[in-house]
């Protein structure tokens, strides 16, 4: 099959899944009514649905579904980008510590008892500062730039994890500690449109930069010096890719907590489908990341009577799926 058609099919699938997810849930809304409710927002239709349906679809399901797609898309794109610039198929978006930074920020915000809306802001800022710190530390180690960044990432990451543990220790065990723990588990329940709005700008920038640089990422994968001799300013390109991936990861983690495996599993699935060429791999990873997280989040909100943290489910689904991908014969990687 042509690579372009695989991407088109994945986007089509995402759109269908989007509509189906709006209809899917404990409170039943027929698919036809979902479409009518959505169309009604653009051109008013005669109301054939109950008001409760409109509330469920527009106020509860829609923001959460949009955010699931955005976060899945971002984590997957960031993972694919990191694998390219670090020439390492095992890289994932939390490689440099963006996630640990965000977790520390969120825990700090909860312990400091800041307004609930500010938790995401704290997480985002801390995540970003972590990557700045990692780049600054990485520059001062001697030897290969790439290995240094990864080492600095491991170091800073573990420092922030320890700091988060300390905050948990110091937190009030009845209110703050459970809040931190649930936040860290990752989940999309209770998503409102303002969460979507908060994450939208950094994510749009991140997606755009990664899509535009996708050919350069191809050239970077052959190695630092070879890429330089082909006319690439490798330091600058890598800095841009890391910055864009950090925007995506920081925005994702700050609105949804720790959601693992998406950034590792989905790019690998896409490599099997279209090969390693980022001209196709990047857009396909984005679409499939959205599909994957939306599917898993549908499970998370409907599997059992209470809400299931989606971060746990992505690991339950992602880890065996990754094993299946890696042990299967054939493929391009």
């Amino acid at each position, binding site marked *: 099959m042509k690579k372009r058609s695989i991407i088109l099919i994945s986007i089509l699938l995402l759109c269908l899944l989007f509509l189906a997810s709006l209809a899917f849930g404990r409170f039943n809304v027929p698919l036809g009514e979902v479409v009518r409710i959505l169309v009604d927002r653009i051109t008013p239709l005669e109301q054939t649905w109950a008001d409760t349906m409109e509330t469920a679809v527009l106020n509860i399901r829609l923001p959460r579904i949009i955010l699931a797609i955005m976060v899945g898309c971002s984590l997957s794109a960031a993972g694919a980008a990191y694998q*390219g610039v670090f*020439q*390492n*198929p095992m890289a994932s978006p939390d490689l440099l510590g963006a996630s640990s930074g965000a977790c520390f920020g969120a825990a700090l915000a909860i312990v400091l008892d800041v307004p609930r809306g500010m938790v995401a802001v704290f997480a985002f800022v801390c995540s970003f500062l972590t990557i700045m710190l990692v780049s600054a530390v990485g520059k001062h180690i001697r030897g290969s730039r790439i290995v240094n960044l990864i080492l600095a990432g491991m170091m800073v990451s573990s420092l922030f994890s320890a700091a988060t543990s300390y905050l948990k220790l110091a937190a009030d065990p009845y209110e703050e500690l459970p809040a931190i723990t649930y936040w860290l588990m990752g989940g999309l329940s209770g998503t409102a449109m303002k969460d979507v709005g908060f994450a939208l700008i950094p994510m749009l920038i991140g997606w755009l930069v990664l899509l*535009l*640089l*996708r*050919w*350069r990422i*191809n*050239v970077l*994968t*052959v*190695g630092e*010096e*070879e890429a*330089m*001799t*082909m*006319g*690439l*300013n490798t330091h600058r*390109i890598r800095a841009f890719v890391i910055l864009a991936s950090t925007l995506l990861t920081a925005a994702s983690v700050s609105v949804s907590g720790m959601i693992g495996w998406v950034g590792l599993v989905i790019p690998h699935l896409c*490599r099997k489908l279209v*090969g*390693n*060429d980022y*001209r196709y791999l990047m857009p396909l990873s984005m679409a499939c990341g959205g599909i994957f997280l939306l599917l898993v989040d549908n499970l998370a909100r409907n599997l059992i009577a209470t809400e299931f943290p989606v971060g746990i489910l992505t690991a339950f689904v992602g880890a065996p799926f990754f094993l299946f991908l890696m042990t299967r014969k054939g493929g*391009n*990687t």
Partner: protein
Amino acid sequence: MSLSVQNISFSYGSNQVLQDISFEINKGEFWAVIGPNGVGKSTLFRCILGLLQPAKGSITIDGRDINTMSRKVLAQRIAYIPQIHRPVFGYTVRDTVLMGTTRYLSAFEQPKAAQVEKANSVLRMLEMEDIAEKNYAALSGGQQQMVLIARALAQDAEILVMDEPTSALDYGNQMKILALLRTLAQRGYSVVVSTHNPQHALDFSEKTLALAPDKSSVQGRAEAVIDKELMKRLYNMEVEFVSAGGRKILVPQYREDGGYVHIPMGK
């Protein structure tokens, strides 16, 4: 076109590898760089490619210092053909060659029809169209090296630099690659290769630069430069030369009893 290396020196910390090296490569010349392991052949190449900054001296192309050129401008003048190595991510042969055209693109651009046509024309010229859709990682060593040459040709630079092109290849492929490089030189490319086999320099190159462990260097026509005394200085080897088919053939002398070569664990 001329690439001029003037009095360059380079050290890794306190370990000096290049000292006062000068030479000039003109259009259509085929240069071989010989010398023992660790003498600085790769370092010299990395300086020429702008990957390392020599402590002293200058490297200019048509009078312009390469340090004043951006990566993109330098890539228009010099292309590097690396040794084959296992890639982390495999690409098709066509896409690998297409990477060579990156210097035509601005940072946010993807290759367009003109670049794809450039890659295709190089593949046609090297008679590699039949493997164009194969995965680079799945090719034989000889084919992989051809792909990397194709990638450098797609870059459209007039100087080709190749570090030990033959070290990972079998005998037939070594000859094929070197003969191809010589043909490219005859077509107007300036080619610089390093090699561990002085016979390759005799067979293929016009000019030879020899780097000796004592930091001295000699250069000139291959037949003139490569002699008994140089082989002793470079490799601590006794050699004889014979003439066959109008070529100067190097015959290494291995006799232990004559003490020509020191062999550990020998008598």
